[in-house]
């Protein structure tokens, strides 16, 4: 997976000063408010989350069996299953199918996996037009940008930005309201749906027992992408399975509630194989591409494994104090926010994304809201520890930190030096004090006070008070 997370410190420093961006992101709180309300009124909400996690544990613990079962059932229902070890293989499969069928125009539904493997770029290079059809993705594609939120890809843009974009790229000026812009997008995209040769989607779930691919949406673009073009390709990570339809019910009850604060999204499509004889619409060819792209590596690491339970609902982004300040782009990865900070290093390598596990206050809000209770803070700490232990270039603690720890250890073992180490600065700190706090530490220690104050050292230590009995 291609990432630009190496410049996270610079990019997030710029983003954190962008008040306009933060105003945009504030609307995401609306999702959280509705989500909390819906879970509160659901009598067995917490039990459903436990059950969902249990199903994920069980399915992922038997993944090879369920994947084979899914494959067998899709083939039985007239579909074709392809396997791709990485993005390159997945892209090659899509391009080959497009070439074989003389495909010129592809309609695409929002899919994180296709973002992950940069499918659009590959299609473009092959001279095939690939149009994103989810309104948010359409906007982001017109702007030649990347989505900044799993669920609301264009959340970083204002109505004014989008109006300007439509004037510039579509030649329709002066659109004032979201309704007007939506009408224009509907018209433009409707033509594409009716003429496209191929529809490409992701998959929210694969149901092993029935060979069914499940797609959840609000706009109807996924229904169009799967119903009108002659060929439908769904791309799915190996982890997206549930054993049966009864298991699916559990997830459908919590997914829309967690993602968008809805009891059920407007449309859920259960696609089982290709169009049957006598039917008028639906794809004549159905292909599923099962993608590994680093997931088996995550599976093998028992401490990381639960990150594969993720439903891509986006709830953890909405509650994260870091995401709320910097938005999605600064993470430099298609997966942003708390979940992105653990799966980006897992997919792309810690050496390319070492700052992401540190981009967290460890407040635990992500773990609290996650519908399948992924312990994101624990994994963030594990990745931090991996980085500290790592022998990679730039890995391990900085030299100064090592030296400081050694001095600390020495002082701890020598009482007199320890006392001096605090008493001397306690006398000397006077000129640095401001409202009883140190706002800027001197020398190499200055970094610590860049974004917070240092408490003043007490005049007398606890130990000396103890010794004197008062």
């Amino acid at each position, binding site marked *: 997976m291609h990432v630009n997370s190496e410049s996270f410190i610079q990019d997030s420093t710029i983003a954190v000063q962008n008040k306009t961006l933060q105003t945009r992101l504030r609307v995401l709180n*609306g*999702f959280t408010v509705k989500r909390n309300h819906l879970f509160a009124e659901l009598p067995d909400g917490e039990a459903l989350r436990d059950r969902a996690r249990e199903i994920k544990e069980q399915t992922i*613990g*038997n*993944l090879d*069996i369920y*994947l*084979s079962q899914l494959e067998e059932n899709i083939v039985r*229902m007239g579909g074709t299953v*392809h*396997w791709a*070890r990485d993005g390159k*293989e997945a892209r*090659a499969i899509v391009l080959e*199918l497009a070439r074989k069928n003389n495909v010129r125009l592809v309609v695409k539904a929002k899919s994180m996996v296709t973002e992950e493997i940069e499918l659009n770029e590959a299609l473009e290079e092959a001279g095939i037009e690939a149009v994103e*059809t989810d*309104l*948010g993705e359409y*906007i982001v594609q017109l702007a030649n940008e990347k989505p900044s939120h799993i669920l*609301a890809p264009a*959340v970083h843009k*204002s*109505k004014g930005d989008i109006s300007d974009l439509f004037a510039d790229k579509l030649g329709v000026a002066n659109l004032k309201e*979201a309704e007007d812009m*939506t009408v224009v997008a509907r018209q433009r995209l*409707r033509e594409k*749906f*009716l003429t496209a040769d191929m529809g490409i989607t992701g998959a929210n779930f694969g149901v092993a*027992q*029935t060979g069914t691919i499940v797609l959840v949406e*609000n*706009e*109807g*673009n996924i*229904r169009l992408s799967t*119903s*009108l073009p002659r060929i439908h390709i769904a791309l799915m990570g*190996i982890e997206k399975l549930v054993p049966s*339809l009864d298991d699916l*019910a559990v997830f459908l009850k919590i997914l829309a509630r967690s993602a968008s604060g809805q*009891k*059920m999204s*407007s*449309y859920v*499509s*259960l696609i*089982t*194989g290709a*169009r*049957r004889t*006598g*039917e*008028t*619409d*639906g794809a004549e060819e159905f292909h599923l591409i*099962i993608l*590994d792209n680093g997931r*088996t*590596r995550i*599976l093998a690491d028992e401490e990381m494994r639960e990150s594969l339970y993720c439903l891509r609902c986006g709830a953890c982004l909405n509650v994260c104090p870091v995401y709320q300040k910097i938005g999605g782009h600064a993470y430099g990865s298609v997966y942003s926010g708390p979940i992105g900070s653990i799966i980006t290093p897992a997919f792309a390598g810690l050496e390319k994304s070492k700052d992401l596990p540190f981009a967290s206050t460890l407040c635990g809000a992500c773990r609290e809201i996650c519908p399948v209770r992924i312990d994101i803070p624990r994994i963030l700490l594990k990745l931090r520890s991996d980085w500290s232990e790592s022998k990679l270039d730039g890995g391990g603690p900085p030299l100064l930190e090592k030296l400081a720890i050694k001095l600390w250890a020495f002082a701890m073992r020598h009482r007199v030096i320890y006392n001096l180490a605090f008493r001397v600065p306690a006398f000397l700190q006077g000129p640095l004090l401001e409202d009883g706090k140190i706002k800027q530490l001197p020398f190499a220690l200055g970094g610590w006070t860049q974004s917070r104050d240092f408490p003043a050292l007490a005049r007398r230590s606890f130990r000396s008070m103890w010794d004197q009995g008062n």
Partner: protein
Amino acid sequence: VTARNAREEILGEIKRALHRGGKAVPVREELVAEASGQISQIKEECERRRSELVAQFETEFARIGGRFHRATNVESAFQYIRQVATDRGARTIVAWEGQLIDGIDLSQRLGQNGIQLLTESTEADFINRSAIADVGLSGVDYALADTGTLVLLACNGHARSISLLPPVHIALVRPQQMLSGLSDLFPLLRYASETEGRDLSSAITFITGPSRTADIELTLVVGVHGPQQLHMVLLDW
């Protein structure tokens, strides 16, 4: 064009990752016999609670922007459909085939009002006609009370485009189709496929309200790619 060993390699990696060396851990069994008892229980329960479920559906359906009409006779159902169509200045309606629509004698009566009713067997270029039709008229296979959801199973005569392409979708529902929720629906679908040997429909669609988006500043806009209006007529006679 799966690279020659991709499948075996991925499955092998998974087995290695799970430390099982190819030995299968038993997968949970779902028993058909158990389902069969469950099925009659579900059916009885839904029948017993029918009026309660209809009321719950009506509340949920209104909450998500659907428009509900209870028709106690054929005339009332027809008049509602005619009204919705004429309000849109409709010329063409695309519809499901079958007893449901024939029972109201819609084709002839709408024809008298200058509105053409097309089905898959009367129109060769059905998809393109659906794309310019004003109204889509369908039945449903089930309705879910707890979320106000319509469940449609695609099949010959019940094209997906009918509930998708026109800007207005009217669904006709019989009270007997009302279930309490997903926990009733999936056992019924599974039972049908396991015991009656029926394959799962190529496309099962859950429709909960009109098409919507909040992609621009999280402002709710109704009617993006799918229908802007969703009506439900309860055929309650």
